[in-house]
């Protein structure tokens, strides 16, 4: 690049800038700028043409004024004129102005593009570079449209200068990042990959950034780069520190390039070719060896560069996870860093070790450093390093060292930094559970945890303790005793009271024998904490009291007295009041037998993934520095599963608890007292019920399966027998307009029922309620906004794809375009069945949530069976018709394995839900089910007969359908086969 000669300095500009610097106040500065702007305007307006130098000077001044924060609305034309100058400095200023100031929708963009094109096709390398830099700096979609085709040509052309090649590669990378769809490599791919062989290291460095980015998108196309990268890497690694001249940085040969190469290799699995692999392993070993060599320089840059390569190599080794030897060596190397005096190195070592610990080969090697890590946790000054140490301890924990690690973490918790306490608590809870051999140890640990860091113990943790205690007979007595002792402390954390209340309520009888913990003592102990607790805890304690009445009849009068007191029975909180009233009545009316049944001990919880784990994953989600994308994917998957399962649990609870009070503790009540309580009339709690569930209540509990309001959905105690059928699959809304992959599944869910939750994600919940008569149907869709932010431009369209248009007439009433946060809107859809059909209509929903457009498509659960009219008939009528429909195409048969338990009542309910009449005493075999019905369409009526033969031993069904129309039998058979 030509150096700026002295004559090119702009005196006027320098004077102007120094004037502004000398201004004493903002006002003075503005005055000076106004004056200058007027001057420039009169110069630009002036009749005589300006020479290049003054044009450059004025454009420069404008740029400076703009950078000071003032608006510039002229001078663009002059800047564009500068582009066509032949002087480097003038062109440079022109490009500078344009990349800073010209926006993409300017009218001048055509002129600018023209100038850039001219420069790109010129032979002058500096001009080409300027043009490329401008394209990259603007980097807009328009730029990509105009030049994305041109730049790869420049990049691979044989006669292009090296410096231009570098610029072109980086420019292309920038365009690819803004609009990947416009940068099509296609035929250039192999030539771009071969840039890795270029002699010029700068070109290779620039190209590798581009290749890394491209290969992440289409790894297959760039597969060939692996062997090239390996050979390039081995050449660098094996070179002496002086070989690469310009690219040697403090005695380290080409550190940036090495790091980039190693990172590129991390996009691919280990090379299959033995020779390549051998060479790569050799490289990695060399890098590890070099780390052991004494440093060639004392400068920090030298060690930084060396360590950068080393860490990149280690993450590649971890990525491959196939070379035990290398893994162990890496681990040892990191072990050395753990005691390094450089804090950053210790941090990185801990972080890398975390991932090493999850590899089977190096897990044992990592474990040897346990003492160092514990020491780091205790003595590190930097909280982020301590956090990594905690992570590593968590990762290296297994059955052999669990007790030690948990104990260390617990003792550290007392002094831990506030920002990491909650995470630490979760980790301790998980480790204690995961590696507990002895459950009394587990109970001790968790109670300790609550005692030490009660504020940071989330709901999930204590839910989990209770689950485990309930599921394990052997610890119940111990738990009751420990809890009782813990509660005797003068100040206990509320979570402790919750655990105490629950456990004593369930298992207080196990320690009642001891006079020191007699029932009354237990009760008094609990009640002494009552007034200090929040409403949900009090509600829980009330439940514990009623359990006490059952467990210890001698406490009945005391407890009734408490329940009867004004502070309970007239409590301003509806939930507490309801509980007090109901429990009081229950205890005074019900006989001991009834009481014993109602207040029976909790059944064991079904085993499933710990929700604490899910919580930890959620917490770590955004902050976690994940090395490995795969792992992240797994993590997200796990989270979704966890969430789905939890919600599934809630459904059944709400169904049982009458959906009367959807306060966070409602499900607790429901689960404990079981269906009996649901006989109680719906209380004033209905005020609290949101619109959604109110609809359900009014509808004779038709919408039983409806999701409860969101606030109760995070409750864990609510786990009932998880009915996966009613669990709405949690789907993340995507921009893609095609129907969600699970929409077929959704469809199947609604074959046998008309109401329920159609769809739910983090933002939106769609409930559905439908009724059908003859060939007509009406469907109500309830769109619930689950967020606190309003949805705008909410639109829905219902379409019938393909031939469905002639078979089904669907009319959707318009829906309000705005849904407030937490609100719900209703849409009515009228459906008329014209002829029989197989497909389902599509529902497309678009709305803006905080600026982002959400777009999702679902299948509306309208299936042919909805238009069934049940037909009752006697046995011989049935068989007569059965025989009439004996043509092979009229019959559809399927034999399939049962996917749910073969419960006669459930099957009956499903068949009734299908819409056909269930005919009793028709089939000679009482195990079999037969049904009859007529499908009403506008064009015709189609009679259908069904026979379902379960085979309980083989867990198989045979389903036979006969109807007067072959398509109908087939479709019905398909639909039904998914249901059992």
């Amino acid at each position, binding site marked *: 690049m030509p150096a700026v000669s002295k004559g090119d300095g702009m005196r006027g500009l320098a004077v102007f800038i120094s004037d502004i610097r000398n201004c*004493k*106040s*903002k006002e003075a500065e503005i*005055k*000076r700028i*106004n*004056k200058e*702007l*007027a*001057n420039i*305007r*009169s110069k*630009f*307006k002036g009749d005589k043409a300006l020479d290049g130098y003054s044009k450059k000077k004025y454009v420069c001044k404008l740029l400076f004024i703009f950078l000071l*924060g003032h*608006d510039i*609305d*002229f001078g*663009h034309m002059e800047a564009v004129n500068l582009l066509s100058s032949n002087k480097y400095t003038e062109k440079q200023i022109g490009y500078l102005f344009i990349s800073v100031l010209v926006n993409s929708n*300017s*009218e*001048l963009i055509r002129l600018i593009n023209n100038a850039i094109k001219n420069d790109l096709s010129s032979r002058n390398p500096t001009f080409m570079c300027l043009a490329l830099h401008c394209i990259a700096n603007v980097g807009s979609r328009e730029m990509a449209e105009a030049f994305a085709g041109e730049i790869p040509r420049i990049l691979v052309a044989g006669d292009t200068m090296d410096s231009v090649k570098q610029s072109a590669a980086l420019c292309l990378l920038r365009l690819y990042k803004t609009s990947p769809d416009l940068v099509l490599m296609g035929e250039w791919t192999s030539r771009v990959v071969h840039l890795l062989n270029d002699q010029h290291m700068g070109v290779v460095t620039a190209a590798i950034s581009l290749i890394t980015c491209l290969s992440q998108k289409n790894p297959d196309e760039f597969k060939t780069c692996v062997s090239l990268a390996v050979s390039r890497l081995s050449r660098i690694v094996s070179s002496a520190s002086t070989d690469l001249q310009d690219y040697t940085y403090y005695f380290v040969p080409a550190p940036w390039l090495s790091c980039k190469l190693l990172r590129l290799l991390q996009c691919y699995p280990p090379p299959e070719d033995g020779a390549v692999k051998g060479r790569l392993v050799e490289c990695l070993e060399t890098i590890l060896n070099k780390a052991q060599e004494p440093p060639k320089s004392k400068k920090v840059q030298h060690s930084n560069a060396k360590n950068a390569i080393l860490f990149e190599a280690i993450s590649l080794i971890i990525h491959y996870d196939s070379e035990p030897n290398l893994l162990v060596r890496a681990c040892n190397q990191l072990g050395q860093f753990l005691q390094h005096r450089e804090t950053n190195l210790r941090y990185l070592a801990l972080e890398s070790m975390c991932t090493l610990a999850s590899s089977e080969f190096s897990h044992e090697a990592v474990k040897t450093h346990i003492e160092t890590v514990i020491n780091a946790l205790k003595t590190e000054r930097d909280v982020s390093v301590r956090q990594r140490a905690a992570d590593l301890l968590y990762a290296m924990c297994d059955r052999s060292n669990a007790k030690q690690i948990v104990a260390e973490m617990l003792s550290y918790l007392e002094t831990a930094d506030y920002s990491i306490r909650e995470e630490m608590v979760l980790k301790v809870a998980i480790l204690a559970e995961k590696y507990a051999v002895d459950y009394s140890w587990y109970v001790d640990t968790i109670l300790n945890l609550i005692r030490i860091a009660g504020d940071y113990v989330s709901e999930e943790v204590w839910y989990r303790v209770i689950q485990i205690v309930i599921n394990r007979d052997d610890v119940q007595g111990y738990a009751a005793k420990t809890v009782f002792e813990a509660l005797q402390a003068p100040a206990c954390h509320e979570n402790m009271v919750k655990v105490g209340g629950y456990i004593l309520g369930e298992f207080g009888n196990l320690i009642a024998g001891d006079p020191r913990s007699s029932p009354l003592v237990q009760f008094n102990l609990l009640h002494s904490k009552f007034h200090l607790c929040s409403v949900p805890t009090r509600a829980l304690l009330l439940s514990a009291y009623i359990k006490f009445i059952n467990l210890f009849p001698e406490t009945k009068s005391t407890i009734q007295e408490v329940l009867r007191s004004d502070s309970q029975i007239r409590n301003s909180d509806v939930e507490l009041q309801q509980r007090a009233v109901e429990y009081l009545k229950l205890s005074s009316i019900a006989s001991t037998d009834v009481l014993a049944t109602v207040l029976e001990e909790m059944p064991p919880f079904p085993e499933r993934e710990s929700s604490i784990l899910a919580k930890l994953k959620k917490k770590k989600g955004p902050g976690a520095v994940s090395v490995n994308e795969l792992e992240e994917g797994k993590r997200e998957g796990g989270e979704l599963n966890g969430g789905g399962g939890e919600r599934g649990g809630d459904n059944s609870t709400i169904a049982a608890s009458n959906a009367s009070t959807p306060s966070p503790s409602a499900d607790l009540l429901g689960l404990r007292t079981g269906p009996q309580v649901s006989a109680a009339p719906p209380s004033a709690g209905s005020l609290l019920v949101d619109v959604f569930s109110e609809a359900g209540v009014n509808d004779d509990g038709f919408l039983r399966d409806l999701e409860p309001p969101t606030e109760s959905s995070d409750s864990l105690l609510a786990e009932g027998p998880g009915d996966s059928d009613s669990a709405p699959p949690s789907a993340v809304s995507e921009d893609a307009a095609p129907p969600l992959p699970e929409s077929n599944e959704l469809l199947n869910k609604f074959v046998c029922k008309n109401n329920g939750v159609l769809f739910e994600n983090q933002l939106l919940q769609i409930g559905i309620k439908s009724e059908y008569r003859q060939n007509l149907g009406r469907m109500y869709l309830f769109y619930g906004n689950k967020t606190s932010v309003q949805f705008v431009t909410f639109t829905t369209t219902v379409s019938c794809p393909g031939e469905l248009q002639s078979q089904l007439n669907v009319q959707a009433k318009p829906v309000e375009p705005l849904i407030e946060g937490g609100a719900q809107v209703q849409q009515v859809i009228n459906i008329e069945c014209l002829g029989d059909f197989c497909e389902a209509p599509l529902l497309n929903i678009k709305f803006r949530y905080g600026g982002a457009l959400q777009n999702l498509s679902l299948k509306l659960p309208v299936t042919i069976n909805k238009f069934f009219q049940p037909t009752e008939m006697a046995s011989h009528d049935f068989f007569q018709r059965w025989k009439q429909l004996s043509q092979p195409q009229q019959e559809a048969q399927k034999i399939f394995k049962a996917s749910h338990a073969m419960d006669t009542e459930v099957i009956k309910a499903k068949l009734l839900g299908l819409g056909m009449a269930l005919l009793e005493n028709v089939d000679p075999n009482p195990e079999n089910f037969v049904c009859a019905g007529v499908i009403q369409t506008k064009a015709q009526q189609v009679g259908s007969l069904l026979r379902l033969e379960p085979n309980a031993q083989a867990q198989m069904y045979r389903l036979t359908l006969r109807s007067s129309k072959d398509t109908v039998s087939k479709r019905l058979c398909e639909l039904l086969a998914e249901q059992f």
Partner: protein
Amino acid sequence: MIGGLFIYNHKGEVLISRVYRDDIGRNAVDAFRVNVIHARQQVRSPVTNIARTSFFHVKRSNIWLAAVTKQNVNAAMVFEFLYKMCDVMTAYFGKISEENIKNNFVLIYELLDEILDFGYPQNSETGALKTFITQQGIKGQTKEEQSQITSQVTGQIGWRREGIKYRRNELFLDVLESVNLLMSPQGQVLSAHVSGRVVMKSYLSGMPECKFGMNDKIVIDKQGKGGTTDDAGKSGKQSIAIDDCTFHQCVRLSKFDSERSISFIPPDGEYELMRYRTTKDIILPFRVIPLVREVGRTKLEVKVVIKSNFKPSLLAQKIEVRIPTPLNTSGVQVICMKGKAKYKASENAIVWKIKRMAGMKESQISAEIELLPTNDKKKWARPPISMNFEVPFAPSGLKVRYLKVFESKLNYSDHDVIKWVRYIGRSGIYETRC
């Protein structure tokens, strides 16, 4: 109450820092500098709230005075105090400038100790202050004199000391008014009000009792009832309706409340007797008639006529008309019949200055403005044309009817006092839309 007071120079360096209360931390000084003086956007509000701390500031040339408090104080009181503070400093060492403040910082701290006590404003009357805060050493002050100061400062009439003697008893009275106007292009008055001050300089001996009378509508009407109808009709036209007024502390408010008469024992020297505001029957000294024509995208023709609207015998002075120009002005040609006109690029305006102009005259300016086409589609907002002037009468119509002086102990009467009355009307924000 005021928690502290800081004075900064234009760079934001602290010249004076005085903290009165513990709730104001050391970092408050920096907070104001960072958030107000060095703020990216110009801070227009005189009150800034930073981290639950309120900063009230006024600016005198390049000097910033900031009062800071954590409490919910009366903002008007704080500003009144800051203005008083400026007056006191001016009275002691002249113009408030960085140089002067640096030279007098001991004095300023002394003053701050005296006029603010634990954040509560105290006596800020310059005359009284000067008796005990002096710039020179005072020799031979006897015990008697010292105790006299104490009794005077803490006494009933803290603003005047006893035993003042003048050979010539003189009184100067200035009625200073500023007239504010916003007018539509068609000449319709959109808003207009006059805010006025009565400033006095008294050089009177002893402890005189003064009585000030003006053509207040309420007083005139009350008197009119007693007098003949002819009198009432005549004087009623001359009287003015005062919307609200405030008085110097020396005025006996109880007398004003009951009789609406303004009687007082004046401080010695210069002081502001009262402030008032009127909105009715304002005499607008000038009328501005704008005519703006856009010729294509690159040219603008402006013609402005001003008419003076008062007695031909009076002369208005220091007339300045400011005609804003669009932001993309590239050249201006001006022709005016009277005075001088110039395009000031740094202020984006044409400034037309006329030294003197008699009443019932008119003058005109026309300008051609060349514009540079821009790619910005924003239309010019057409800011209003503003005007400055000075006229020798009170635009509100206020007239001084009498100013009587009674001094029973000394042997001079009302007739012996020489009284000077002067009216000055200035422009406040005097704007006409175009």
